[in-house]
């Protein structure tokens, strides 16, 4: 499929989820996954400012991206943090050449196989509310067109935050973040419950949750809550296996 077509399809997919039963975590998860597909990168992670002095990881395409994001937060250095602090994109950074800039982070990122990193800011009016991080295994640079797509997706992530405010009363950024993080925890708890009941890996458990949510049109968080609340069993989720959904 031509890239323009794929891009259009992703925009339509994301716009379709901007409904009343909006699930912020699922939206941001889908967004990071599509970003990786659209611009041929290998992993993505998204951090949001909790408005209380901390950045928090709310979406990631695979475990290595999540661990790197957490690593950045622990070591207080890396592309996402610099991008968040400056409000500027920090793109096409050769990690083999970043030992001065981020001595600990660059080594850790290369350790899990990444050669290049990109970070673009999520802006809400004049405030920077988060950052989107991308990693590539091959030592290739992203073109200006690709970087424009990445920034466009980061802008759409901000639209997701605004949309949630529009459909809920009195919601402020700090609360959105707290709720999103708890949704993320419910999803992790459900992955554990499901993997124990079905004897599968947590990654496979996530695919089951995801494909059930897609199939039924329910929010991912609602499906996860139904699983931990024992209203949905492993049989319900495996009843109609569609193709593999994206990880994790």
């Amino acid at each position, binding site marked *: 499929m031509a890239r323009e077509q794929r891009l259009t399809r992703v925009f339509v997919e994301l716009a379709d989820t901007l409904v009343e039963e909006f699930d912020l975590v699922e939206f941001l998860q889908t967004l990071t996954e599509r970003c990786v597909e659209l611009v041929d990168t290998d992993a993505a992670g998204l951090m949001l400012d*909790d*408005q*209380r*002095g*901390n950045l*928090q*990881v709310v979406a990631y395409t695979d475990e290595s991206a*999540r661990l790197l994001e*957490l690593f950045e937060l622990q070591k207080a250095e890396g592309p996402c943090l610099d991008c968040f602090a400056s409000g500027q994109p920090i793109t096409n950074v050769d990690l083999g050449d970043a030992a001065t800039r981020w001595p600990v982070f660059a080594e850790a990122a290369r350790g899990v196989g990444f050669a290049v990193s990109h970070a673009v800011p999520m802006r809400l009016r004049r405030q920077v509310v988060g950052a989107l991080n991308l990693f590539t295994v091959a030592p290739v640079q992203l073109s200006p067109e690709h970087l424009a797509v990445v920034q466009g997706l980061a802008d759409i992530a901000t639209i997701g935050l605004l949309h949630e405010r529009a459909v*809920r009363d*009195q919601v*402020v*950024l*700090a*609360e959105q*973040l*707290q*709720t999103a*993080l*708890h*949704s*993320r*925890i*419910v999803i*992790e*708890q*459900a*992955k*554990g*419950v*499901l*993997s*124990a*009941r079905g*004897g599968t890996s*947590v990654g496979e458990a996530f695919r089951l949750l995801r494909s059930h949510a897609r199939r039924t049109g329910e929010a991912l968080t609602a499906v*996860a*809550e139904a699983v*931990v*609340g024992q209203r949905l069993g492993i049989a319900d989720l495996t009843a109609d296996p569609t193709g593999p959904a994206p990880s994790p």
Partner: protein
Amino acid sequence: MASRRSAELFSAALAGSADVTELPIRLLRACSDALPVTGVGLALMTERGPAGTIAATDAPAAALEDLQFTLGEGPCVDASRSGRPVLQPDLAATAPQRWPAFAGGALAAGVRAVFALPLRVGAIRLGVLDLYRNSPGALSAGELAEALSYSDAATLLLLHLQAGSPVAGPPEESMPVLDDRAEVHQATGVVSVHAGVSLGEALLLLRARAFAEHRAIRDLARDVLDGVVDFRPDGESE
């Protein structure tokens, strides 16, 4: 979500307190002093509803908790059920329609605004922090953010108290539970199935075992996920 700020607030309540039973009221008083509210109450919640008051800074705050415990309705009940804050800056205008039984009692006690903040670890419902004002008025975004830091500190406090003194180590030890530790939350789900207990009890089992074995809860969680450590009852497998 255990931000540095909530860790500070929790540590401040912990510092210099010889008596563990004093902890809740110290945290609530600090919260009440720091924000433009009249009083603060802390209630335990389960999936079935309110389970009792832990502490309250004054009589109206206590009345607010008692009312919701007795009636089974009110902002704190809704906050716990939905997992989201319920903010009622003008109770007289909104409460009579939404919670008919609760509204009369709350207004009679002099409560004019309520901000109910749920205390949870994902799907585990622990309690609710209720802030009230004796005159109508909203909290600003900054004040609400600070209130949320107090609610996270209260969550840490409940986890700390729940575990009893053996597991109740310094705040750093309880912090990973609330922090972004996917493995711990996944392992909680696994243990709840293997041991046949609720998620809340599963988290307690994990913490107790980590404490008994002098290990980081994250390492234990990793072993649970890898099948190295098993919480199934003896003699059972797969």
